């Protein structure tokens, strides 16, 4: 299977992909795009913080109103004028009437909203917020702390406690995370590896789909331009498929290596210094494993994408045949995303060993927790097994498909191709 013919196809495939505009653009633009997205998100968040709000704060007792007024006056969001509060004391019935009367102000956004703190809140801490957008998370989160503080002070103020005791009660638990691994020292862990695992999942997924699409299109192009029969007079369909897939897989792995270069440089050189909070730790072994794992994953996936390409004659038709293969990449991607919340979830555990899924899930998981060697070996073995299991079938469909022209085949027909003696 590996001879001068396969090598010639392999070389052409690498050259064609590396030189293609879409490859160059994606390789450069994806990181730019990713940082861009992050930047825009941060920008939007900070912009949110500056939105001005005009709020009515209503309590049922004058003392409580006063307590809020005093507390809020010291808060940053009142001091810098971003939030303006009007304080009222009224009973629930009076408030309900007041709300009814001023409903239009809220709807027209003249007033952002009204906070009603009933006397019962002193016992159960349940307060009410009336606004056009009731679930304004940034606003309610910001005010929650301040309101809580007033309520706590009011509650404990009558219970004869010192300020120290109050402060203690108010303080939130701070969990410092330390990562225990095979390494000698225990490391304090920041957000770095969390971000890294996101990054891995995202890059693996993007590159997989991109290389898949490119391979599929190149198969369709060969079929469409009828160059395939000329090729088949020199190489067998098996050699052609092998050369194409290995070529594209090597290109994809190279792309991944380029993307990972900054990560490798941060770890191995002192050219870049990240704040402690964002510092991450990866080992050379992890990077190599990730690239090897990805290379094999590409072989598996590209085999499927090439097969889909061989079935259809135009890219439009191929879209409909692509979704089962896409799902094999999308589901693991979401599992990988969920791992960030809980690296030891059973689903993640299983997915990191399953064929197709392990390609994205395992590296993501690796960035978060130490994985025993036997699991890494098992995942790799499963991947190799998958390649051997799907290629005889994929190769058969590919062989029949690339010389078929005319109407779009049905799924039944495709199944029957597998049984053909071609």
């Amino acid at each position, binding site marked *: 299977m590996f001879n*001068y*013919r396969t090598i*010639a*196809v392999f070389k*052409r495939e690498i050259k*064609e992909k590396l030189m293609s505009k879409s490859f160059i653009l994606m390789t450069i633009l994806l990181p730019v795009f990713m940082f861009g997205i992050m930047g825009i998100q941060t920008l939007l968040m900070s912009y949110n913080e500056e939105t001005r709000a005009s709020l009515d704060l209503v309590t049922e007792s004058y003392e409580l109103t006063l307590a809020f007024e005093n507390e809020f006056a010291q808060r940053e969001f009142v001091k810098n004028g971003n939030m303006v509060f009007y304080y009222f004391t009224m009973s629930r019935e009076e408030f309900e009437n007041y709300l009814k009367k001023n409903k239009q102000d809220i709807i027209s956004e003249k007033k952002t909203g009204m906070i009603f703190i009933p006397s019962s809140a002193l016992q159960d801490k349940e307060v009410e917020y009336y606004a056009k957008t009731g679930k304004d998370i940034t606003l309610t989160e910001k005010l929650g702390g301040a309101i809580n503080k007033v309520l706590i002070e009011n509650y404990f103020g009558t219970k004869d406690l010192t300020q120290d005791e109050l402060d203690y009660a108010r303080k939130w638990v701070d969990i410092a995370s330390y990562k225990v691994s095979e390494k000698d020292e225990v490391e304090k862990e920041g957000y770095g590896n969390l971000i890294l695992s996101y990054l891995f999942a995202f890059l693996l997924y993007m590159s997989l789909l991109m290389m898949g699409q490119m391979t599929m299109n190149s198969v369709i*192009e*060969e079929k469409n*331009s*009828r*160059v*395939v*029969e*000329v*090729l*088949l*007079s*020199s*190489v*067998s369909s098996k050699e052609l498929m092998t050369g194409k897939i290995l070529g594209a897989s090597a290109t994809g792995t190279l792309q991944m290596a380029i993307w990972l270069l900054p990560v490798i440089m941060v770890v191995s050189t002192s050219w870049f210094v990240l704040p402690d909070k964002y510092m991450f730790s990866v080992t050379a072994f992890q990077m190599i494993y990730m690239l090897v794992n990805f290379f094999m994953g590409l072989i598996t996936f590209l085999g499927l994408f090439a097969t889909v390409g061989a079935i259809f004659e135009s890219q439009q038709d191929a879209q409909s045949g692509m979704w089962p293969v896409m799902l094999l990449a999308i589901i693991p991607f979401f599992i990988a995303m969920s791992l960030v919340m809980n690296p030891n979830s059973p689903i993640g555990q299983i997915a990191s060993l399953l064929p197709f899924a392990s390609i994205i899930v395992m590296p993501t998981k690796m960035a978060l927790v130490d994985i025993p060697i036997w699991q890494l070996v098992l995942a790799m073995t499963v991947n190799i097994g998958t390649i051997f299991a799907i290629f005889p079938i994929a190769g058969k469909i590919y062989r029949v498909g690339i*010389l078929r*022209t005319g109407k779009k085949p049905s799924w039944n027909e495709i199944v029957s191709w597998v049984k053909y*003696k*071609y």
Partner: protein
Amino acid sequence: MHALEVRNLTKTFNSTVAVDNASFEVPDGSIFGLIGRNGAGKTTTIRMMMNIYLPDNGEVILRGADVGRNFKSKVGYLPEERGLYKKMTVMDTLLYFAEVKGKAGKNVVAAANNYLKKFDLYDRRTSKVQDLSKGNQQKLQFITTVLHDPEFLILDEPFSGLDPINTNLLKEIILEMKQKGKVIIFSTHLMEFAEKMCDHIAMIDHGKIILKGSLSEIKAKFAQRNVSLVHDGDIAFLRNNPIVEKIEDFGNTTGIRVKETGDVQKLLKLLVDNNVTVKKFDANDISLHEIFIELAGHESNKPEEVKHV
């Protein structure tokens, strides 16, 4: 020994028999024509010879031995549905197609340059294929077929879609290859081409080989009762004459077949006696087209046996 021998090739798609027990022999140094109408099974036969399709049955023998994997490298193949990579440059295309045949290096580059100069494409060698005219793309395709100096040339409907200039060019290539002692096999439904170029033919219809052998012998055998006539005057009286089996009007010429070999002279006398001006009376002449029509023309009259000359 034959250069190439096809033995009992059979191929079935679903329930359709595309090629049915086809056998023929291609002698060394010959131009061999596989002829038949569209859908007769020519392309399927050729694809099986090229090992693009796996035959259900039968084998292809190359100089006495089973064709190995390396047969492909010895063949220059021009499929009916041709194509090139649109975004590759002319030179890259040539080198790539030579490389998959196992030929690379300086010699190939030199040979490629020679061909490009010969075909007036040298100044386009760095252009992309998509920027060439259709005629030039066809020329480029010819070069890819012969650049690796193949022993065999297998051409599937080579003249379809070619303009007259490229048709002549391809003819030249074929004759040049013949002079170099290569074996050329081509399929066509155009009888005139086959007649002008082939030494040997195999005629295929409905997947079956219905006639095969050397063209001159085939023609000699079929021509014995055939006359090609160019005349002035009415020959309608021949239609009911007992010595005439068939009359076919080809426009300029009329093909007449008599019932017995000895009737040819009687026919000439009959024409002269009836005041028909005979401009050309060619006994022993039959076109391949006529033979084909005779053998495969009538659906009801399917010949079962292979006529081997």
